[in-house]
């Protein structure tokens, strides 16, 4: 049985991972910050387990950032069963890993994919999809022309409240990423305020 607490040098000896690498893993967040007792850091068995798992995954050429993602998703209680699984049957342990988010993350998952022969049938649905979407929206904010859309009933407020129709705003770019919107028409007081703001911006440039 393993003892439950180690100094960093003991942990290094037992795990076969250098103290420098252990510190690096801590810094990169692959291992949690250890408890500091007096002048020294104290490491528990959990560190042993996590180091073993890191080693297995590194042998599988997984990059550290992926290993970190994986370690972030599993709890201390899950590590030992996972290590056992790897020892007994690496194949199914790996297929278990597949289900983890790290492999799924870049893949967008939506409804099932149509085969070309299904496309025709689905095509009929594009219009329905949009109409359904529209049916769920408030009426007051759209359409100069196209009366067939205006006739659709409103069911629930799908979007954030829109400004009153016909309301007009002046947009003044102040800096990249920064804009001032002024409702029209502007009264003298607003105009003066806008001028003051613009002066302020000009002077700062």
């Amino acid at each position: 049985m393993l003892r439950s607490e180690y100094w960093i040098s003991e942990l290094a000896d037992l795990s076969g991972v250098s103290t420098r690498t252990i510190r690096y893993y801590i810094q990169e967040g692959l291992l949690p910050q250890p408890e500091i007792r007096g002048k020294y850091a104290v490491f528990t068995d959990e560190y042993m387990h996590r180091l073993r798992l890191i080693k297995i995954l590194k042998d599988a050429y997984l990059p550290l950032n992926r290993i970190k993602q994986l370690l972030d998703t599993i709890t201390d209680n899950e590590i030992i069963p996972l290590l056992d699984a790897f020892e007994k049957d690496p194949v199914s342990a790996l297929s278990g890993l597949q289900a983890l988010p790290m492999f799924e993350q870049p893949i967008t998952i939506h409804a099932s994919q149509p085969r070309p022969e299904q496309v025709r049938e689905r095509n009929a649905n594009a219009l329905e999809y949009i109409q359904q979407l529209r049916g769920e929206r408030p009426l007051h904010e759209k359409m100069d022309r196209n009366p067939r859309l205006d006739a659709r009933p409103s069911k629930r407020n799908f979007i954030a409240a829109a400004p009153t129709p016909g309301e007009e705003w002046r947009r003044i770019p102040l800096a990249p990423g920064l804009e001032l919107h002024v409702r029209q028409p502007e009264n003298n007081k607003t105009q003066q305020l806008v001028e003051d703001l613009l002066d302020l911006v000009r002077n700062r440039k």
Partner: protein
Amino acid sequence: MQAPQLTIRTDAQLISNSVPTSRILEIELTAPEAQLGRESTPLNLALVIDRSGSMGGGKLEQAKIAVRQILDLLRPTDSVSIIDFDNIVTVDAEVSSVTPAARSEMIASVNHLQARGSTNLGEGWLQGCESVACRLADGKVNRTLLLTDGQANQGITDPEDLSHHAAALFERGVATSTFGIGLDFNEHLLEAIANNGGGNYYYIDREQRITELLMQEFKDLAAVTLKNVVLEFSFPAGVAVELLGDWRAERHDNKLVINLSDLPANRTVNLFIKILTPPGSGQLVMNAAAFGHDENDKSFNVAQDINLQYAAPDKVAVAEAARDVDLVTRFSTVVVGHYSNEAYKLEREGKYEEAGKLMDRLMVEHGVNLPHTTRARYERIRVEVREGLDESHRKDYNMDSYNLKRFRHDEQRRDPDQK
């Protein structure tokens, strides 16, 4: 009629029989040349133009020039709608056959466009998709082109909602390409709509390029020789896979289904998949298959297998040392494009340190494989994201990463250093 070309390659043939092995696969699909003398595929387009106040001056004028040029090239077999929007959406013109008479009428209505109001991007785009959906046909290229310079600040504004709808409409046959002009739009939103919508994303850094880039997309659409292209990658149980490049893809058990939309003549698409193979013996067989419709609306189907050989770890190490360096370079380029874009998202949220760390890991792992100039550029970006980027760099870098991850080496690709 030439057949589409499909190839699948790996960085090395051997995999370990005792420990999991990480391998790279590259699937390359090339659309055939157009047949001589054959009319190109009919188009069913919606041109959706932002006319909000900030489009005033040169931008809207340039957009009008581009629209007129496109109208000039459309034929009676094509259908088109012109939609413009600020806080209100207007259907300017909608014809199911672009005859000379319809054309001059449409040009006249485009000439009257004036900039005003705020940006109901969601509704404008949706109106475009609706117009396309009304005339949807399998034999056509069905696509909405959305041109905007602003944030979605009215109507549906949530980027996730918009990308979800883009995916849903693409699945139902309506694709979307997006064009962002200037510095005030959200590059991640427009890119997500295009990625999920099966189209292309373009950043237009100055108004003079509006016509050039809209025409580039239009020419691609007019030259389509493969339609509704779907690529399926099948692999045995126990293999972990990761597709790079933000393609629209779905995972079904032991199959990855990637929707590539329509491809113009001679366009090559390179897809990179990272796999982790389980220990085993003998051979590990995987398969790539592409299907869809060709120019003549006939369905096509091409497929190729790839076999990896199980071997003892020492032999695998030897094979590892001799792996296909060019393929590794292409792969690393795509990985850097893919994940640097994630770093820009973090940067945009003000998480500079996180963005920097992501770039660190990326460059430590892949920097050494990159072509020299790409590496130098991304080493610099790695430093810059820690200090925060200005809007113009955000857009430039995002476009550069987009081109890297999509492995586009055509004229659209541009080195931000060479502005």
